């Protein structure tokens, strides 16, 4: 139950009076308040600092250390207080959780010590409030990454059972995994550098023939440069083919940016090989050599920073696009103005508006080449306005782009967005599960509650304590409230799974209208050990694989005849089955008193087998003076 509203439970129960006139069935008995104590103050001594709170405050969360009987382990008899040898500063957050229902994460605390405290006090960190959850998760992720980095240095062992292909791919992607990969990495880097330098040096004039003008080195040492080029291209081709072979998904690899760069880098060479001495296309061929400069982009495989820069530019595309757009607008406006301003002057360079574009760009970027200058007064005025606004236009978007870059850079430093989404889903699932615990807790305790009534009526206190170990009074009252609602509407709460099953099964439940003696005995044993077709199966509770769940819905009693409207029994494992069989045989099913005695006899054994006691004996409600005990197995 959501414990923050535990104080409103009396209100909810009182409001249940609104259902009473509508109900057709009699209401269940309210849980007895065994000891009607006044609310007492509890002293919690945490390493010397004393915290005091009401006991009810702590009881709001019965599945934590402080809310359950686990705190009795820490009770100090002499000082009559609960002593915890933990950090008092962190305990503040824990106690505030009980008081307000919200768990907060103090920012100055270390994340691992906070986690330890929460684990000690039995509080799941997923319920940290939304105000502090982001911070908590960030810190946790940083911590985990730091630990992972430390670990990764240690774990360089090759994973077993990797095929040759996978090994190669891994070597390509992470050069530091093996020596061969490192060698390969450096060799390719070296050749990329060689290739780029070759391209550059090719164009440097180094001829020294006196009667000729300088020729570029490329034309002078054609053969040498050609050999160099061939060697580089061969290395790149081999590398590309090897990567293509090793890639887990070849199609995806071929579409990736890096492979496209590789292809573009080596293609001009092969095209050049193919077409030789064709004057028409030789011009185009020369242009194609420009693409050789793309080889420099192959360096981005070697540099993480370049990759981030590329990614940033890609994601800042909208800002860059807008910058470009506004610049274009400004250029057009000012070019038009300058053109018309300079139209009058003679020998003006501003021959057309497109010609003025060049002046505007040069002026706005404060380059000022001086090849085009305005001569008229109006032209000079507008020229100065143009240069001033140019400064503004260029300077303003730059911080936006810079901040974008830093944001993306920091984002890249953290884990993937996809991992964060998965964690968010997991968190919500865990919270949902703990909330759902309240529904299943009710269904679970219904059986226990029925047991309690048997015990109360027969006055056996040891067993009562034994079975009542974990349900608090608050939970009891809440379950009683839900039970009243069931009685009002004559329907029951069931598990989701069971609901699905009953939805699929169109067969209605049987009313075993028979004498309660042997036939029910047979019926039960039949149910127990054979797959029941007529009787309904029940749903297993989420925290146990097999449990029995039995509840009689309504019962009429005349004499000794008892009718059960529904019986839900699950076919159990064989060992359990035999246990029930024994119990079956032990029962004398006819007289009520007999059932009661056997009920008591057989009761202790099931709880000892599993914590979720497979108590095979639910009891009907006390009904005026008739004690109706329905023993179903």
């Amino acid at each position, binding site marked *: *139950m959501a414990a923050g509203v535990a104080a409103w439970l*009396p209100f909810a129960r009182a409001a249940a009076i609104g259902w009473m006139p509508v*109900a057709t069935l*009699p209401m269940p008995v*309210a849980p007895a308040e065994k000891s009607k104590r006044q609310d007492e103050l509890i002293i919690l001594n945490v390493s010397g600092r004393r915290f005091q709170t009401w006991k009810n405050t702590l009881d709001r969360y019965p599945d934590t250390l402080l809310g359950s009987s686990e705190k009795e382990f820490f009770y100090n008899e002499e000082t009559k207080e609960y002593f915890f040898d933990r950090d008092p500063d962190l305990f503040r957050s824990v106690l505030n959780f009980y008081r307000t229902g919200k768990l907060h994460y103090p920012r100055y605390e270390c994340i691992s010590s906070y986690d330890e405290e929460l684990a000690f006090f039995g509080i799941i960190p997923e319920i940290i409030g939304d105000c502090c959850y982001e911070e908590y998760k960030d810190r946790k992720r940083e911590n985990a990454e730091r630990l992972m980095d430390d670990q990764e240095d240690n774990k360089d062992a090759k994973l077993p059972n990797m095929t040759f292909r996978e090994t190669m791919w891994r070597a390509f992607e992470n050069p530091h995994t093996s020596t061969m990969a490192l060698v390969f990495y450096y060799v390719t880097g070296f050749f990329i550098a060689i290739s780029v330098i070759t391209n550059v040096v090719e164009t440097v004039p180094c001829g020294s023939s006196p009667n000729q003008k300088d020729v570029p080195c490329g034309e002078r040492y054609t053969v040498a440069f050609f050999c160099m080029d061939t060697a580089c291209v061969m290395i790149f081709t081999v590398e590309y083919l090897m990567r293509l072979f090793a890639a887990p998904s070849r199609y995806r690899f071929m579409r990736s940016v890096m492979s496209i760069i590789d292809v573009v880098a080596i293609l001009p060479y092969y095209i050049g090989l193919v077409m030789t001495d064709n004057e028409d296309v030789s011009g185009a061929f020369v242009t194609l050599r420009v693409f050789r400069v793309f080889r420099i982009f192959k360096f981005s495989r070697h540099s993480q920073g370049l990759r981030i820069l590329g990614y940033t530019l890609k994601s800042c595309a909208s800002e860059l696009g807008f910058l470009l757009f506004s610049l274009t607008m400004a250029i057009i406006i000012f070019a038009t103005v300058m053109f018309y301003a300079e139209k009058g002057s003679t020998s003006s360079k501003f021959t057309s508006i497109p010609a003025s574009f060049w002046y505007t760009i040069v002026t706005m970027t404060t380059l000022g080449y001086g090849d085009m200058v305005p001569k008229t007064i109006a032209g000079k005025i507008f020229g100065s306005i143009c240069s001033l606004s140019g400064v503004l236009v260029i300077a303003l978007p730059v911080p936006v782009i810079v901040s974008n870059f830093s944001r993306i850079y920091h984002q890249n430093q953290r884990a993937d967005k996809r991992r964060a989404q998965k964690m968010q889903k997991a968190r919500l699932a865990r919270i949902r599960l703990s909330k759902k615990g309240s529904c299943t807790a009710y269904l679970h305790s219904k059986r226990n509650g029925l047991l309690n009534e048997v015990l109360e009526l027969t006055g056996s206190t040891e067993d009562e304590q034994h079975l009542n170990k974990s349900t608090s009074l608050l939970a009891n009252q809440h379950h009683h409230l839900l039970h009243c609602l069931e009685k009002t509407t004559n329907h029951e709460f069931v598990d989701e799974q069971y609901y699905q099953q009953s939805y699929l099964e169109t067969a209605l*439940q049987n009313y075993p209208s028979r004498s309660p003696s042997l036939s029910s005995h047979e019926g039960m044993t039949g149910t127990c050990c054979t797959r029941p077709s007529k009787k309904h199966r029940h749903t297993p509770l989420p925290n146990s694989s097999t449990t029995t769940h039995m509840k009689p819905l309504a019962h009429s009693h005349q004499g000794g005849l008892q009718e059960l409207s529904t019986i839900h029994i699950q076919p159990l494992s064989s060992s359990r089955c035999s246990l029930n069989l024994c119990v079956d045989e032990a029962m004398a099913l006819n007289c009520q008193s007999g059932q009661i005695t056997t009920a008591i006899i057989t009761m202790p054994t099931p709880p000892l087998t599993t914590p979720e006691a497979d108590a095979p004996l639910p009891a009907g409600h006390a009904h005026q003076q008739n004690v109706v005990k329905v023993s179903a197995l």
Partner: protein
Amino acid sequence: MGALMVIFSLQPKQRRKMTDSVEDELELSAVRHRPEGLEQLEAQTRFSRKELQILYRGFKNECPSGVVNEETFKEIYSQFFPQGDASTYAHFLFNAFDTDHNGSVSFEDFVMGLSILLRGTVQEKLNWAFNLYDINKDGYITKEEMLDIMKAIYDMMGKCTYPMLKEETPRQHVEVFFQKMDKNKDGVVTIDEFIDCCQNDENIMRSMHLFESVL
């Protein structure tokens, strides 16, 4: 030109800031209600001093501002019925508690209602229940009103019930109710018919005493 760019890039943040400040203002001007003194409440209700203290502490813990509005009321009530949808019934309850119909339940309203429900005579409790069912407070319970209430109650059960909830289950239940309550078969149930009928029904009378030990 630069101004345009500034406007475009900063506008989304500004808009957010503006709505935040509006909401903040609303928060600050929220109603802060302080209840009457303990002695007065003690005189007006049938609770002892200690009980009033416990009640107020719980009330204030959940609603620090001192009043409950309908949304908070629905949330609180829904937490007790995790499997179903308790908001419709909570709405009717809210109207029943908000006796002066000002849209919020203060501690006095809360405690008055509880006083009737937990410490009142059977007559008073039945009166309260009738008031709850009579949605438009005209002194008659019609079949439509009862159907609304019944649907709200069945909504709280949720979907996963056994036996499965069918469409006509609330309607049938209303028929049964009217058959029992409507003595002169005029299609409405008056307060006298209601009280008479309830007083003659053992189950109902017994269940009225069910929650007396609460608190």
